[in-house]
């Protein structure tokens, strides 16, 4: 039988599983804003935020929710080469695979998209867009001008990425959505909801306000960092549960264990 801490640990595995999506005030707001932006006749929408603020899961949720209503496609990982990217795009647009030993004629692709205007509205969700080359981004911009293809570009918020956004999309991006780290209250709701979703009521109750204060201090409200920290925390709890249960307290998580997890992950140092 699995230890409850083992179950809790797996709750916080870092994955983009839409079933793990947690409704929070800020994420609901961002989702609604993104959905409305897609409805508008905009060429490109920029979704940006620090790594771990929930951009990918938001794009996944959007695709999951709208997949039966719209032609919406999620490009999770950027294509390594331009050829690879257009092969994927060709399949989305024509619903056919590109024959072997052939390449996409970009001019012909733009003309094809122009012909689709008014007939189809294709939404492409580009995750990790900061990894695309400037040349690909320029071609994406030209395709968006056809108005048949709409791009939602998710970028990590760094100085360089903002520069990319400025250079290639400044005039075409009509809507910008920013995702931020969670407040302490939001992070508490996030952690509790995640645990309650798996019926881990005891563990959810054992995480007290002072625990969350420390967790928020370590992770600065970043969801990915929070997942990492709680995974490590419950891994430590799992060890003590099996080997030295005197060091555990069923009613509340000892701060010491959170500090140990923080040490292991490098949030704090000796």
């Amino acid at each position: 039988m699995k230890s409850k801490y083992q179950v809790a640990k797996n709750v916080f595995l870092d994955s983009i599983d839409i079933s793990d999506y947690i409704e929070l005030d800020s994420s609901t707001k961002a989702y609604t804003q993104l959905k409305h932006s897609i409805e508008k006749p905009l060429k490109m929408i920029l979704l940006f935020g620090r790594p771990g603020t929930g951009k990918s899961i938001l794009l996944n949720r959007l695709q999951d929710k709208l997949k039966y209503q719209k032609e919406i496609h999620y490009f999770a990982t950027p294509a390594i080469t331009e050829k690879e990217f257009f092969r994927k795009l060709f399949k989305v647009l024509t619903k056919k695979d590109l024959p072997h030993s052939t390449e996409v004629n970009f001019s012909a692709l733009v003309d094809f998209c122009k012909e689709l205007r008014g007939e189809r509205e294709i939404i492409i969700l580009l995750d990790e867009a900061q990894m695309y080359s400037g040349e690909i981004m320029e071609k994406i911009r030209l395709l968006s001008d056809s108005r048949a293809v709409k791009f939602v570009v998710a970028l990590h918020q760094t100085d360089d990425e903002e520069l990319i956004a400025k250079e290639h999309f400044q005039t075409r991006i009509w809507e910008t959505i920013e995702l931020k780290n969670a407040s302490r209250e939001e992070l508490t709701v996030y952690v509790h909801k995640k645990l309650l979703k798996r019926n881990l009521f005891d563990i959810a109750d054992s995480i007290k306000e002072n625990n969350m204060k420390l967790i928020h201090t370590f992770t600065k409200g970043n969801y990915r960092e929070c997942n990492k920290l709680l995974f490590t925390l419950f891994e430590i709890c799992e060890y003590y549960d099996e080997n030295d249960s005197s060091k555990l307290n069923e009613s509340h998580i000892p701060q010491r264990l959170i500090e140990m997890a923080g040490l292991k992950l490098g949030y704090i140092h000796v």
Partner: protein
Amino acid sequence: MYDIKPLEEQWVAYKRKQRRPFVLGGFALVVVMGASLFLVDFKELNRNLLSEFTSQPKPVVQADKLLITPAFDSLLLNEPTKRAKVALITTQGHNLIEISEAPSSEEDIELIAPPEVPSKPRVKIDLNITKTESLSAYKDVEKQFLTAPDPDNSLFLARNYYRLGKYRKAEYWALETNKIDDNIEESWLLFAKAKLKLGRREDAVAILSSYIKSSKSSKAKELLDRIKKD
């Protein structure tokens, strides 16, 4: 979880590091408080010492009186010829006199320092202990008197010249004292005794009789009676 032991050790080290500023802060606070208390005590101690120092002149004056009295006693006992060694005590420009024996000559005068008072570290007294060949100390007082006539100085000179057997000088300085203040009993007695030593017995009797009329001094009466008996 295979690395729990090193992690526990790391945590212990981390907590130790976390507590260090508080421990150091607490220690610093104790040191500062200790130093403050010490400084307050030290200031209080200094204030006490200073107040003791400022009240210092009194005992010096008392010493002066005490040292003079034996001289008169020996005079009244009519033993002026007894040879004695005279020691002058100088402190802060004032001369104090101590007589252990009747003086024989000027060479027997010696300047000595008063005993040091260990409980008054702030008192800085320059003491010159010299055996005087001449009466330079008296001359300094004479100069001081000429600059600013003070009956204390003239009486001092009269008193000491009489002890030294310099009766003419004693007579002169006793008279100078009387000129400034004619109510000083000691000065009149010294004046009369100096006259007597100089062989002018009648003058001594007349001086004492005159002084007794104005002051009704018992000491003057006593001296007069003794002179008349002799």
